[in-house]
């Protein structure tokens, strides 16, 4: 029986995390379908159809799906769930918002944030801020799963294109309404998929000083992240927070600047390939996980680094 992946998109472009979810889905079953629900999102469906391993794209293109509200999408998923052995989405704010609703109405468990697939019914997921990894076996007829996308490589795009099949179900509800959104329009890469992440903590001292970090990030083509302390202090928005309850990243290079390294922050970045820590406190816990540590005044080091790169 096939498995269904819910595409992550903004009606215009397909978010590459979808390719990582397809990768995880392919480990459950070789027949992978992708659901694109939105409005005016044909280009997204066409992009999803190019991923290797995708055999069909379901396109629900209707204004009712414009903001992908979970109250609406749940009805759509319930209408098609009978055909699938598993439904997967990224463990993004979108996937987390939607899938537990679907699981509850199907009367099955959700398996959150998987980092490995052992078999069609056995999965590995982090618990306790990633301080433990649980291997869980599901006895449910349909598996509802969110995927930690940093743990799976994006599948490649092929020459062939999967069939795109329109869905004509129109789900309406009036209990929840979209009011507005305010999305950052940064030229920098997204945190979730960036090869290099430069993160700042309370050591930066102010929102103005965060610009020093941003200059370094731009030199490296890196995404900018932050610790919870920096978010709490109001230096940057919460959408940049890396940690247990923020973004989970695993870039090739993670540079932590002025971050002490609380358990909750380490949970969000300790799977990075190379970790660099720059902090003026030699006892900061961040040095215990760093491949390269530099005890120094970050205000001196940041301009030096920028000049060297």
């Amino acid at each position, binding site marked *: 029986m096939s498995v269904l992946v819910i595409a992550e998109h903004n009606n215009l472009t397909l978010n590459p995390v979808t390719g990582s979810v397809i990768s995880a889905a392919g480990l459950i079953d070789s027949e992978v379908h992708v659901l694109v629900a939105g409005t005016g999102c044909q280009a997204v469906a066409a992009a999803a159809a190019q991923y290797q391993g995708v055999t069909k794209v379901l396109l629900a293109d209707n204004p009712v799906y414009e903001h992908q509200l979970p*109250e609406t999408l749940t009805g759509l998923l319930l209408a098609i769930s009978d055909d699938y052995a598993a439904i997967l989405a990224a463990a993004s704010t979108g996937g987390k918002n939607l899938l537990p609703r679907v699981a509850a109405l199907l009367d099955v468990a959700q398996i*959150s944030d998987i980092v490995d697939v052992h078999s069609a019914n*056995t999965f590995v997921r982090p*618990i306790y801020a990633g301080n433990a990894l*649980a291997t869980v076996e599901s006895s449910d007829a349909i598996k509802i799963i969110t995927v930690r996308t940093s743990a799976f490589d994006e599948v490649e795009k092929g020459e062939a294109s999967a069939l795109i099949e329109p869905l004509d179900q129109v789900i309406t509800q009036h209990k929840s309404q979209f009011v507005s959104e305010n999305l950052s329009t940064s030229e920098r890469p997204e945190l979730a998929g960036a090869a290099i992440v430069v993160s700042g903590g309370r050591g930066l001292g102010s929102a103005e000083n965060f610009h020093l970090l941003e200059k370094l990030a731009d030199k490296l083509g890196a995404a900018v992240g932050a610790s919870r302390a920096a978010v709490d202090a109001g230096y940057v928005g*919460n959408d940049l927070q890396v940690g*247990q309850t923020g973004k989970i990243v695993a870039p090739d290079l993670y540079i932590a600047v002025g971050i002490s390294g609380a358990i909750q922050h380490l949970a969000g970045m300790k799977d990075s390939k190379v970790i660099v820590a720059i902090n003026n406190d030699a006892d900061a816990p961040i040095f215990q996980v760093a491949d390269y540590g*530099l005890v120094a005044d970050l205000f001196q080091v940041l301009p030096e680094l920028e000049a060297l790169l």
Partner: protein
Amino acid sequence: MKILVPIKRVVDANIKVRVAADNTGVDLNNVKMSMNPFCEIAVEEAVRLKEQGIATEVIAVTIGEDKAQEQLRTAMALGADRSIWIEKSGVVEPLAIAKLLQAVVEKEAPDLVILGKQSIDGDNNQVGQMLAALCDMPQGTFAFKLVIQDGRAIVSREVDGGEQVVSLALPAIVTTDLRLNEPRYAKLPDIMKAKKKPVEHMTPETLGVTVKSSLKTLSVDEPKGRSAGVMVGSAGELVEKLRHEAKVLP
């Protein structure tokens, strides 16, 4: 307006847990337990709505063993009016928690349910959404701002890449994110007063809910550890190492 606040007793956020030697779970012996931090934010938000005259009653509810009542007392010291303790030992999966809470929602008929977005033990991030689905209510997850206006909840949400605002018909479910508020500390007189506030005892049986489980934990393992690397002396040395040793820079 009545607000229900489900809370959870968890390992204190400052404790780094260890995997148990037999790999069946984590070692919780003699570990400090507290109210889940996101649940504290939920209690605080409900109490603030009561202080603003918007809510009339705040009810805390928890599911757990005998000791979970400690966290109900904390919630009442912070301002909840009364509590419900659903006695159930062992791990209860999110769907079962949602079903138990659904039974409480049907009994109490709250206008708003405020929960933490996730508990820091299981890290599931499911219960609020599941409860909303079971009760056929709209949901405002990951809230950083909540306004009650004209019989609706206007919820500003943390989403990937920014913020989103939704308007929900009441009754509704809201789950809390970090920026929603900064919870207060309980004052000694309030802690004393909380001891006299009522705690209603219930069980899955009295609520008519069968607690099922469809997930079996086969093992719990220590993640691959990272060890400390090398210290460098200067920015120049760092760039040199990143280029030629780690090869992560061109």
